């Protein structure tokens, strides 16, 4: 449903997104996890056609967002970090306007507006000015706006930011209900949010994809294992099995392969150093050992920067960084 290939975005000399690739299948909820400033918003803005990428391709619902932006946008609903509301319109007027510019047919408009308002529970606020809405309602109207043209793809940038705990739970439930009919990408910097709502996670840091996995696997990998990156020359089809047979190794993933050079990510139980055994296995197999290094740092570093606990109202400490 969504395919991102080698996406890169540079602002002058700053690289905000660097060679990002991932796929999202139909009906899936993909979490986009990363600390603030990791490039989540930039990636989402590229996917929604708000800004072009410097390099790479993004295909949304079968349409390239650069080549056929109108077709892609017709199938995408987007909730930016701050809901894009017009303060001087009522909720109903606003949704009617959005329905118009999103191309909802005049005959269906009133019905769509009504359905969407019920779906996100804002029907009781229909005639209130957007300027007068509370933060929770603004977020919901923002979600309604993204849903109004019944898009295949929903892109939600920090949909729970700034909500109170009860609203957060409601919003997550709502997002889960929407999956299936819609393919969803949501960004967050809150770890538990991902494990509660998403089926798969892309972890992004400093513009690069660090890991793509299910939330459970990621947590397990993080808690209980260490990862080595091994690059060898001349490994055959049995390469993975040979490395997996090394004592102490729990999991081997082939991460890249070109011109006979293969890279593996080798996981082992925490605290167990398998480097010697790995090197020996490589040499006895008759391959050339090109690289052997621990990978664990990158992922851990990021998790240190993430919010790992639910803290809706953290007390700001002077000089400290507050993420919620």
């Amino acid at each position: 449903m969504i395919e991102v290939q080698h996406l890169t975005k540079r602002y002058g000399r700053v690289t905000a997104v660097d060679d990002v690739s991932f796929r999202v299948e139909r009906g899936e909820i993909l979490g986009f996890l990363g600390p603030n400033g990791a490039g989540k918003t930039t990636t989402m803005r590229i996917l929604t056609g708000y800004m072009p990428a410097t390099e790479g391709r993004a295909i949304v619902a079968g349409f390239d967002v650069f080549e056929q932006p109108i077709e892609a946008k017709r199938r995408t609903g987007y909730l930016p970090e701050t809901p894009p509301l017009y303060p001087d319109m009522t909720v109903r007027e606003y949704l009617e306007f959005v329905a118009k510019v999103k191309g909802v047919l005049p005959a269906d408009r009133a019905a769509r507006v009504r359905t969407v308002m019920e779906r996100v529970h804002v029907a009781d606020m229909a005639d209130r000015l957007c300027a007068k809405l509370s933060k929770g309602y603004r977020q919901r109207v923002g979600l309604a706006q993204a849903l109004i043209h019944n898009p295949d793809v929903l892109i939600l940038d920090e949909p729970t930011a700034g909500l109170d705990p009860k609203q957060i739970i409601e919003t997550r439930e709502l997002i889960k209900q929407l999956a299936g009919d819609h393919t969803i990408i949501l960004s967050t910097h809150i770890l538990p949010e991902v494990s509660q709502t998403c089926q798969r996670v892309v972890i992004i840091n400093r513009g690069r994809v660090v890991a793509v996995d299910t939330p459970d696997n990621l947590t397990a990998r993080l808690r209980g294992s260490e990862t080595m990156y091994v690059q060898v020359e001349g490994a055959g089809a049995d390469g993975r099995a040979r490395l997996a047979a090394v004592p102490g190794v729990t999991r081997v993933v082939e991460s890249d392969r070109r011109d006979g050079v293969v890279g593996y990510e080798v996981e082992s139980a925490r605290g167990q150093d398998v480097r010697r055994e790995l090197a020996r296995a490589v040499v006895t197999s008759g391959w050339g050992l090109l690289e052997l290094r621990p990978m664990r740092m990158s992922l851990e570093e990021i998790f240190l920067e993430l919010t790992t606990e639910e803290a809706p109202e953290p007390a700001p400490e002077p000089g400290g960084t507050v993420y919620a």
Partner: protein
Amino acid sequence: MRNVVAIAQKELKSYFASPIAYIVIGVFALLFGYFYITILAYFVRQSMTMGQFGGAPSMNVNQQMIRPLIQNFLILLLFMLPAITMRTYSEEKRSGTIELLLTSPITDFQIVLGKFFGALALYSIMIGVSLIHILLLFVYGKPEWKPIATAYLGLVLMGGCFISVGVFISTLTKNQVVSYMLTFAVFLFLWIINWIGSFAGPTIDSLTQYLSIVDHFDDFGKGVIDTTHLIYYLSVITFGLFLTAKSVDSERWRG
């Protein structure tokens, strides 16, 4: 087309949802009314003087009443139009609603056109108020309607030029005050650009005469529709809208 209308309607509605429309139209009505009364009083006194001497040809309402009125009117545009255009893009950028528009299945140019026509609609309503005064003259006098029609056509075109430039300037900043001041400065400069002409030699003189937005209005005021002026106004409008679209596009690239 449907999208352009949707944006234009939204723009016009938001003028009336905020104080801007009422202030602009109210202030305009007040000042125009003042001009009207003073010029009318002057006109009446002049015709009485003429009448006392007797035999003189009756005074021309178009020449001596409506034309000076519209000349004064032009000065008002200088102040009023930046207030109409200052928020078009600035406000969307500040509140983040620009993200909604730019991620909707509509082209940048449809948004630009929508905003332009929205502002032009408010401006037309504003000058529509002045037509009430002019129509009163038909009750008591016999003005010719054709020069009035051409003058209003000229007013719409000239306003269109200023609006397209003003909308462009509003894409450059999030701040409405900055937007107003810059627009006002550019309008004023386009107004008086021909002043330098008489000192700077014949080439520059004719060039600046051509560029001066107000000079092109004269013929419209006299009841003449000259294609030179028509083309001038339409090209300035197109150029302004083109700059606006380019500015929005470059904003996307810079992020």
